């Protein structure tokens, strides 16, 4: 079962070659008193067919975006994934390779890294991107650590309360042991007030972090925030939705210094939250403080253009405790998926996808707002997600709607539900959701 290939004869021959009478003898460097004197307490092994049956049974206990119509968002979205993404990402030459330590035997992975960086620069309007990070939440933390090092202002970081709560929580963890104060600006009305941000930014503040569109789906006044941040000498870390950039201004165009994102929407399955894709891009002058792997172009001995991992003097295997980050890999396979996705869509496809999300979200919001007692929580422009306020218990309503075949949204607080609408949702599905919602709410 262990995918091993040695025949009894192989074993004998190999043991003889190493001068041991048994494998046990090879293990004698492990002191006897700490050897495990019993088998591990684990279930017995299963053949492929039995494992497949067991897994299918467990998978069938889950609702999913496949079994239900998904309006659930909160940073992870049910976007359509073209078949070319899986066709490419399921090639063993990509997914069973490792970090390209030998560039000559890894030009596939390396060139994809370079293509990914090129796509992200174009997508964000910024000068440099790394080859990816773990996910959106940790990318926010890495961006802030980067800003902290660049500004040499370790004291304080200001973040809008409209940034995804899990990103804020992750950042808080990263800052806990670094004596950096994390100030969260309250957002009572759906978007953060740039004047409130300005109030909190002082001479010891390294970064202002704002998400646009934000956790509630609303558009922030990013140009004002960028100006206020710049005036105070801090760096503006913008958290973006990559799909939104089909229609919205790019972070580089509205004044972001560092832009980060959860890249899941770019061809990555929902997968209960991972593996996802952290995206980080920044202005040219910050390149030496970027965390993680970066691919660069060069030439080989015959003058051929090729690609290598570069600027490695930033990294942990050389700098150890002085490195810009402790990260030693990227999310190469997810960066590959995103690269294929963005290429498959192209400029027109990305614009149409973003436009469809926005239109369908606005249609859905209008339908839900017609239900007695239901109203939009915020009177602000939004992109593909919006928050509705309901009179009753959102948890009960969401459970009822799940029984009707919908993952209808995400409960936020005591009375609110965030509803996300991607290009995959048809008018019919939205109408059916509104009808079921009205029926359930009336009871």
């Amino acid at each position, binding site marked *: 079962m262990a995918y091993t290939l040695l025949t009894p004869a192989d074993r004998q*021959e190999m043991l003889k070659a190493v001068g041991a009478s048994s494998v046990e003898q090879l293990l004698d460097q492990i002191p006897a008193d700490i050897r495990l004197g019993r088998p591990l307490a684990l279930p017995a092994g299963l053949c492929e067919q039995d494992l497949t049956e067991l897994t299918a049974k467990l998978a069938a206990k889950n609702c999913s975006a496949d*079994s239900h119509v998904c309006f659930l968002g909160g940073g992870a979205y049910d976007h359509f994934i073209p078949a070319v993404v899986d066709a490419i990402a399921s090639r063993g030459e990509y997914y069973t390779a490792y970090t390209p330590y030998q560039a000559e035997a890894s030009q596939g992975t390396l060139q994809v890294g370079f293509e990914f960086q090129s796509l992200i620069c174009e997508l964000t*309007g910024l000068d440099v991107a790394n080859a990816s990070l773990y996910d959106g939440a940790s990318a926010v933390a890495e961006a802030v650590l980067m800003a902290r090092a660049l500004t040499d202002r370790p004291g304080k970081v200001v973040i809008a309360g409209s940034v995804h709560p899990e990103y804020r929580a992750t950042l808080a*963890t990263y800052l806990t042991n670094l004596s950096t104060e994390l100030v969260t600006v309250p957002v009572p009305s759906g978007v953060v007030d740039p004047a409130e941000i300005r109030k909190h930014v002082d001479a010891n503040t390294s970064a202002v972090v704002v998400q646009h569109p934000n956790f509630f789906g609303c558009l922030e006044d990013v140009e004002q925030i960028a100006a206020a941040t710049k005036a105070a000498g801090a760096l503006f870390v913008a958290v973006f939705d990559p799909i939104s950039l089909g229609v919205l201004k790019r972070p580089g165009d509205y004044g972001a210094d560092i832009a980060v994102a959860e890249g899941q929407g770019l061809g990555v399955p929902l997968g209960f939250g991972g*593996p996802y894709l952290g995206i980080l891009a920044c202005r040219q002058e910050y390149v030496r403080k970027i965390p993680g792997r*970066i691919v660069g172009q060069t030439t080989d001995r015959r003058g051929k253009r090729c690609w290598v991992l570069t600027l490695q003097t930033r990294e942990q295997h050389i700098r150890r405790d002085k490195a810009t980050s402790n990260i030693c890999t990227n999310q190469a396979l997810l960066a590959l998926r995103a690269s294929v996705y963005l290429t498959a869509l192209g400029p027109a496809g990305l614009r149409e996808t973003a436009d469809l999300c926005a239109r369908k979200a606005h249609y859905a919001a209008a339908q839900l707002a017609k239900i007695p007692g239901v109203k939009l929580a915020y009177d602000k422009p939004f992109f593909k997600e919006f928050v509705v306020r309901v009179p009753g218990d959102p948890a009960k309503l969401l459970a009822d709607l799940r029984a009707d075949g919908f993952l209808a949204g995400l409960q936020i607080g005591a009375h609110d539900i965030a509803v996300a609408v991607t290009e995959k949702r048809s008018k019919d599905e939205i109408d059916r959701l509104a009808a079921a919602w009205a029926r359930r709410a009336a009871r």
Partner: protein
Amino acid sequence: MKTIATELLNELSRKGRRCHHVPASDVEADHGLPASALSAAPPALPEVGEIDLIRHFVNLSTRNMAIDTSFYPLGSCTMKYNPKRHERLAGLPGLAGVHPLQPDDSCQGMLQIMYEMQQFLCEISGLPACSLQPAAGAQGELTALYVAAAYFRHRKQTHKSRVLVPDSAHGTNPASAALAGFEAVTVKSGPDGLVDVNDLASKLDDKTAVFMITNPNTLGLFESRIVEIAKRVHDVGGLVYLDGANMNAILGLTRPGDFGADMQHYNVHKTFTGPHGGGGPGSGPITVRDFLEPFLPSPMVVKDGDRYRLDSDRPLSIGRVRGYFGTIGILLRGWFYIRTLGAAGLREVSEVAVLNANYLREKVKDIYAVPYGDRCLHEFVASAKKLRAEKKISAMEVAKRLLDFGFHAPTVYFPLVVPEALMMEPTETESKETLDQFAEVLRTIAGEDAAFLKEAPHTTAISRPDEVKAAKEPILHWKR
């Protein structure tokens, strides 16, 4: 000459060409976005047709070596076979399509798998509590150090400011220590390649928070004085952290919790064969002793009766280190693997990994001396020192030339304690024939002309790249 793969997407791009088509809008609604927020045009992404895209990425893929194409004895990376059944099962809609923010009662199957995975990892490490959240090994280390910091803060032992790290450790150890707010202090290796216990003892004091140790270490040797080491660390009130990079050597044979570790991380993508993906995703869960459990990241999967749920009510928790719950896709593959192998299969993994490594070691050691240890566990570090002195053939030359023979290179120049290091980890999934062929090629290379080797590899897609130029004049994305 075919150039399609080496052209960049932007160079293949032709205005107006398309691959994916988006459906027409079926709703009568405006996009509702204010003009001030809109861009004039979408980002200028490449414009290619579907066949262009497929040929480009397929041809590029052929410029990679991978486990599916080649023996890949990259030391410390555990490049074992990635079973195909895992790919199909992880892609089941009832797993791949689960949204991370679904209520617990709508994903009981997923939570059961994750709960069992926590239990399995606890049993294998001999440590009773587990967090699956860390995104990779390096983040697992960092998370464990956050847990240690929270533990000492809770005990009001804020003087615990130092993390001790052996000089042979992976660079992520000291980097994680610094990021967690600790001072990293280096501990020397002794002449036997193991931790120098005297040097360790001289650096242990009341300020010691954590000693990070990799066992088996990066030389493939078991730290035979580990129990004494752990006792010494505990005697000054410190915690022992086990870097689990080399767990493939000890599955079912010995357990970190039984030899004194208080915390450890796993690299699920190595030990339990999640594919490495060209450099990620990884998955770096940690297991800890009971007194550290309250500080683990939130949420965790718990079981109440026959129901599973995510528990976020953990007041002493360090909080989150990433979004949602963890690298589920890799954790699922780890669970498939452990369910396939069971206890006997896992033990066989380690036994065969050790036998394969010792056999390969024996076949090459007369030419590539192995300076540390008479035997090894799952890997060993050979040296091209003699070749370098006698024939001016360096470890780099050997590594590059191996590529010509269709073998991936071992890890080179690490750990630093071995000059001209070639770190080889064959793993348990390779046959004797493959090991014989690889050894034979290593011997052949040693007999080749040094000038010829300096130009190696000769048959790969590119010859040696100019890394200095890449760093000096960085070109990091396509320019018009």
